[in-house]
């Protein structure tokens, strides 16, 4: 007996997996993303007549929307609603973010200051979550979205966990971005520096195709240090070092030579440097001509 074509099987699988939203105020549109913790769909809120993102979790996990709901920050997608589907799976509804993912944004080769400003903006919601005792544990370029009006949003808090909680869970995160302590399964020993490592790896990813100067590369290296004692103590410290570089100040991650210090000072005080150099040149000329 001949089997069904793959196309038909895929369609059947989609129909079977599609959440039954008949008892809710939402109507399903299409799948927009898929991860280890669930599937994200775009949906239509029939009451408020607006498009939303609806995430169906792969289990009866109500911790994720609760965690996310605690984090009210412009850099974190707000949760509007949550509930249970007839098949027992949990879902929650959030703002539908439209824009480019960080990896797509980086593929456009933006200028270094733009990259650094975005990097600094990523640190803000992460630091906010840390201040509320929550670590993300899966920071990567695919989980950062840039909106059309310059918004920077950190997404997918599905594996986030409360710091110091006694919950025992499996290794979560993405290889290449998760910290060594996270990869080794020491989930109980994780702290905010684990997210700092991931931020450092994201920064290294962003800088990969640029000719970033040594201080910037040193910032990324320090954030992604294997030994967590050598990393920044928090996301705000990392952000502050980036801001120092953008302001033309020395960064904590890099020790400059006197030549680099001078060049940095001149490049950020061009007018004053030109005035001083002109003064010195005139004094030298006067000295030279009065000696003759």
């Amino acid at each position, binding site marked *: 007996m001949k089997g069904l074509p793959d196309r038909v099987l895929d369609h059947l699988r989609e129909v079977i997996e599609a959440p039954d939203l008949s008892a809710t105020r939402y109507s399903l549109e299409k799948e927009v993303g898929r991860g280890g913790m669930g599937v994200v769909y775009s949906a239509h809120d029939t009451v408020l007549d607006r498009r939303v993102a609806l995430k169906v979790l792969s289990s009866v996990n109500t911790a994720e929307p609760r965690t996310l709901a605690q984090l009210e920050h412009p850099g974190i997608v707000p949760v509007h609603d949550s509930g249970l589907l007839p098949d027992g799976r949990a879902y929650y509804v959030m703002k539908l973010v439209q824009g480019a993912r960080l990896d797509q944004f980086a593929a456009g080769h933006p200028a270094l200051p733009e990259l650094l400003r975005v990097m600094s903006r990523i640190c803000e919601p992460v630091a906010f979550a840390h201040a509320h005792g929550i670590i993300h544990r899966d920071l990567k370029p695919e989980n950062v979205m840039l909106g059309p009006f310059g918004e920077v949003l950190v997404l997918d808090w599905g594996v986030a966990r409360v710091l110091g909680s006694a919950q025992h869970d499996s290794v979560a995160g993405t290889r290449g971005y998760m910290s060594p302590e996270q990869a080794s399964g020491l989930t109980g020993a994780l702290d905010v520096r684990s997210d700092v490592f991931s931020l450092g790896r994201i920064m290294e990813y962003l800088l990969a195709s640029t000719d970033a100067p040594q201080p910037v590369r040193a910032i990324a290296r320090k954030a992604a240090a294997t030994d967590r004692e050598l990393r920044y103590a928090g996301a705000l410290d990392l952000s502050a070092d980036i801001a120092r570089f953008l302001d033309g100040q020395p960064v904590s991650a890099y020790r400059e030579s006197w030549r680099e210090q001078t060049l940095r000072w001149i490049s950020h005080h061009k007018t*004053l440097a030109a005035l001083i150099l002109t*003064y010195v040149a005139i*004094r030298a000329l*006067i000295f030279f001509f009065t000696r003759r």
Partner: protein
Amino acid sequence: MNKPIYGLLLGGALGILDGLTAWFTPEVRAAILTIVIGSCIKGLVAGVCIGYFAKKVNSLPLGILFGLAVGMFLAFLAAAAPQPNGQHYYFAIMLPGSLVGAIVGYATQQYHPKSATKSAHS
């Protein structure tokens, strides 16, 4: 510290340094103390004027231009008075004097008093 005070102190300090460069001109080296005092007073007057201007006008190019003009004018007055050896050193006094004024003009425009920043945020 407000801008006129900042200009006064910076102008005075740069005036002293500018006056000390007279040491490199052997003809006037004997009168260096008089030159340093005169240059310091010139710097103080220029600095307070430039600082007051910076307080009223928030523009880097205008601040530099004003500093250049004030520095040049005061340097001209200093150069117009004959030196102990009876000679006038117009270029040797006016060119550096103008630039010192321009530097003070730049610095006072870039300087933002802390109290003003606090009140702006509160």
